[in-house]
């Protein structure tokens, strides 16, 4: 077990964005958090990444309890990929400087070779190295973001909706790439998505979140067999099959 969270609660004022969430992630597995906007799934990921410091409960990484802030050693083992490839790369920095930055932060050697190798691994040639983000497509940018996360050779990747801003054909390529990299580097994934099918494809185990709570945890085979018990999970499943006039009738309005 590489990661475990107990009683994880995040409150923004009155609202409990995450309410007593508990889950564990095994080393080398890929774990999914599914939910709609406002479910608290991204908040959980941001707490793990140390981007939100105001939380209660306990989180243990590799057997050690995590505090409010994370040290550099933590970030050399855990890296994050963000949802929006248009926003997560600095607009004034070339791909080269984006990749050199984590190397400098973690005081790693052989920058040249590592940058070249990282670009190659995510399927971008060295021709992309000195371009600016605005010269790249969404899919290419997300590949750069993945390269940037992997360049410090972490054990775990936190993926925040890594393909939701991409076209479906590009999504397939990026998901395949992530899967291949996970196997090649024996990585652990924690992936957040609103898309059940994407999570079922990528993750062996998943938890469904609704209004800050984890309502159900199951493995993907059970999900595929339709063994979800929680009404919210069932509703998500039904909705993800596509538009259906009669089905829409059965959803209560959410105002």
């Amino acid at each position, binding site marked *: 077990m590489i990661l475990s969270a107990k009683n994880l609660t995040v409150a923004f004022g009155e609202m409990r964005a995450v309410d007593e969430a508990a889950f564990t992630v095994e080393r080398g597995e890929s774990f999914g958090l599914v939910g709609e906007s406002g479910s608290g799934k991204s908040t959980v990921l941001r707490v793990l990444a140390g981007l939100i410091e105001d939380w209660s409960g306990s989180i243990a990484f590799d057997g050690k309890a995590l505090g409010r802030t994370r040290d550099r050693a933590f970030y050399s083992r855990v890296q994050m990929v963000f949802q929006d490839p248009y926003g*997560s790369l600095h607009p004034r*920095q*070339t791909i*080269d400087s984006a990749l050199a*930055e984590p190397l400098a*932060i*973690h005081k790693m050697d052989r920058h040249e070779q590592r940058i070249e190798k990282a670009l190659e691994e995510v399927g971008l040639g060295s*021709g992309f190295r000195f371009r*600016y983000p605005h*010269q790249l497509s969404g899919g290419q940018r997300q590949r750069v973001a993945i390269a940037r996360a992997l360049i410090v050779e972490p054990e775990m990747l936190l993926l925040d909706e890594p393909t939701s801003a991409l076209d479906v054909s590009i999504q397939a390529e990026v998901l395949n790439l992530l899967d291949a990299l996970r196997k090649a580097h024996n990585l652990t994934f924690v992936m957040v998505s609103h898309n059940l099918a994407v999570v079922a494809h990528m993750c062996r185990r998943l938890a469904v979140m609704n209004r800050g709570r984890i309502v159900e945890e199951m493995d993907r085979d059970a999900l595929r067999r339709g063994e979800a018990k929680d009404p919210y999970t069932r509703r998500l499943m039904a909705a993800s099959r596509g538009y259906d006039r009669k089905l829409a009738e059965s959803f209560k309005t959410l105002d």
Partner: protein
Amino acid sequence: MNASWSQWLLDEAPASRAQARAGAFYRSWLAFRRNPLAMVGLAIVVSLVLVAIFAPLIAPFGPTVQDLDFRLQPPSHRHWFGSDELGRDIFSRVVFGSRITLMIVLLVIVTVAPIGLAVGTLAGYFGGWVDAILMRVTDVFLAFPRLILALAFVAALKPGIENAVLAIALTTWPPYARLARAETLVVRKADYIAAVQAQGASGMRIVLRHIVPMCISSTIVRMTLDMAGIILTAAGLGFLGLGAQPPSPEWGAMISSGRRFVLDQWWVAAMPGIAIFVVSLGFNLLGDGLRDVLDPKRE
């Protein structure tokens, strides 16, 4: 321009850091070049620099050489801008005066920009008590009227160009701190800042390497737009006798001494006045053009 050079600069896949940087710069230049007024501004500012550098070659006389036989001569073949009450060639004085103006401009830039950027970005990024203290200090400086504070400052020390510059810098940096802080508050929320945080970067590193570059362009733009005001303040101090001291050919001081003859020998005050006007206009036009090119929202 040579076609292969332009091709190298506009290459979609640059082969080196330098080429990427040069390419980005060249693209901005192409955009800048399409604005004729901005090009006029650039030409004026470049001329100011060239005139200042080559002043001894351009000026026919020394700036303080007196020739009492030729007092208060109107503009002529010998004295293009006329001569003043001590028979000094006004054209030569205006040319040498450009050095003083340029020095004021440079000194203000090197003091105001770093102070404003540092205070603003640190306050904006770290927030909390850092923000409270830094911004209250800024407010204190903002509360003083600019010329009055400069006057008091110069009066307390001693009149002179260095103290005038210091006084101007002291009263100019607060708006830059506010500007940088406002930009930092926006940039801080961006995903690319969260991304470097999640790479493990320290707060100082994030501010210096990731936030400051986003604030620099607006600082440059504001600086060029402010430059006219700074030059005018310096001239104003000179005019009041608190800036550059005679016989130095500072433009404001020249207007001040020409004031007595303004009705009969108009050129004594008008020539340095025109110089101030042209240079101020040049910086303003340049600033307008730069704003269009450097605006981060453009991309």
